[in-house]
């Protein structure tokens, strides 16, 4: 007798209340991103700075290769080395490419395919939904920034054979990727919640990430003041890296200002996003 002939029957298990109800969104998101076309190639490219910096660490610890250490300034200063790794332009560029390939779809896709009723008829609230979406971006970004940073630090101990810890470096290795990831994730998700068409979202992201840098440079060239670099996401991240790694600031304006701008922008984006999801939840279906 087939199941259909037997008719409907009840499930005898027990539903559990997880303290992290967003975890299925996280795991599903990780899987879906990994299954995307070209994702492995992009991951490989995003990890390439790690191997270059790993080689650099090896070079800096070998006495016979001291000539290279003398030529490259960052090899002489541990904090500067890790700051360069955490804020290097190529990693930032790859993060943006990753954002364009999967971040744009995260909420925009749910709007386009009207997935909200499926989420919000479950024991989830706006906060859980957003935690789930944030966690997907955070996972992949931290995988290419925080994890390689920690691994590089471990490799440094292995290559030198000495255990010496600089608190500012540790602080920088952990908090620069966390802060930058949260900042980029908040802006990405906010933009993603504005349109059901992911192409528009990608264009908006492209304009914000790349054009902001171009505008900041143009204004800097005209007015010759570094304060315009506040407009550039890339410059903000580099400046906050200098602040947290306690190295010389990249630009001639107070480094704490970049931290304040990033924190305020992230919080503002999160607040707007929370309200936006509330509206989308209420507009789950149009008409009566």
């Amino acid at each position, binding site marked *: 007798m*087939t*199941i*259909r002939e037997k*008719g*409907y*029957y*009840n*499930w005898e*298990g027990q*539903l*559990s*209340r*997880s303290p992290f*109800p967003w975890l*299925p*969104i996280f795991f*599903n998101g990780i899987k*879906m991103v990994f*299954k995307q076309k070209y994702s492995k190639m992009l991951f490989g490219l995003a990890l390439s700075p790690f191997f270059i910096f790993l080689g650099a660490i090896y070079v800096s610890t070998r006495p016979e290769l001291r000539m290279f250490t003398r030529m490259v300034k960052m090899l002489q200063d541990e904090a500067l080395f890790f700051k360069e790794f955490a804020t290097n332009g190529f990693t930032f560029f790859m993060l943006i490419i990753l954002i364009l390939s999967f971040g744009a779809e995260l909420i925009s*896709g*749910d709007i386009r*395919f*009207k*997935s*909200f*009723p*499926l*989420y*919000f*008829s*479950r*024991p*989830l*609230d706006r906060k859980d939904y957003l935690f789930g979406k944030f966690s997907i971006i955070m996972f992949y970004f931290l995988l290419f920034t925080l994890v390689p940073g920690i691994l590089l630090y471990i490799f440094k101990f292995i290559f030198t054979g000495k255990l010496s810890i600089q608190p500012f470096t540790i602080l920088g290795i952990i908090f620069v990727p966390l802060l930058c990831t949260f900042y980029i994730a908040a802006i990405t998700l906010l933009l993603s919640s504005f349109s059901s068409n992911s192409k528009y979202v990608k264009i908006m992201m492209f304009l914000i990430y790349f054009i902001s840098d171009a505008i900041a440079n143009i204004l800097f060239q005209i007015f010759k003041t570094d304060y315009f670099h506040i407009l550039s996401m890339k410059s903000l991240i580099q400046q906050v890296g200098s602040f947290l790694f306690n190295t010389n600031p990249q630009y001639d304006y107070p480094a704490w200002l970049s931290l304040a701008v990033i924190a305020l922008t992230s919080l503002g984006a999160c607040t707007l996003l929370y309200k936006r999801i509330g509206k989308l*939840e*209420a507009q*789950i*279906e149009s*008409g*009566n």
Partner: protein
Amino acid sequence: MEKIIELKNINFSYAKSAKTIDNVSLNIGQGVFGLLGPNGAGKTTLMKILLGFLTPGSGTGMVLGYDITTNRKMVRERIGYMPESDCLMPGMDAVALTAYLGQLSGMPKQEAMKRAHEVLFYVGLEESRYRKVEEYSTGMKQRLKLAQALVHDPKLLFLDEPTSGMDPNGRKEMLELIRDIASKESMNIIISSHLLPDIEYTCRHVIIMNKGQIIHEQDVGIVGLDQFNRFEIKFQGDTQAFIDRLKSMNWTVDIDERGLCTVLLPKDQSPRHLFHYALESNAQIRHFRQSKTTLEDTFVSAIGALNDN
């Protein structure tokens, strides 16, 4: 009877518009309830309020004993919702989608996967359960939406236009599924529809809405009015004896204030019996007409009465 839904003086209006839900008070017990009304009556808005998607402007409401404004998660854990719109998650097959939504409801991963297969078999998607959901036809999407609403075996099931966009065969199968679920009596169902035959076929009770108000509540009586023929009769003579004779056959008999008698006759019984019993009881049948549906009359008169006012 245990109250499944209890609403008191619920009001709701979208920004700057007239009241969409106007002072609705409602008690719904166990069983299958139909929410009927023309487009714009407020059915979907009322469902959204019950699901906690919208917060009422005033009034209180409980679903399965939990407050709809302060205990939304508890409510959502115990309900299943089949939305009207074509909602899906692209890039996933039906099994993955149903299991994923089961997990979001709080099911363990393995259990959710096992149950996803079961409910997809149950709704008739066994052959296509590994196909990407974006490749599904409208009918298949409707079945998938029912499967995802059933996966965690909710106590209360909300079905919003469950047969929308389905071909006649698919529609019949969907209604059969709903009746089968209802027959187990472990799940309470609320069906919102503007299709009277669907409501009549599946529901025990009907609530008619118009202009944001509940304008009529009625027991449809027996699930599956299609198993009966309904006749309207007017007669003279020994009225009481005739009615008693009909009731002795366990047939449903109802007389309105105008003296119009309505009899529900099982389909396997011939209407000739009515004439035979009338003769036996010394009653003369003066008017005899087979009525198409009870609900249609009720619906038209309820909507009409409100419009007249």
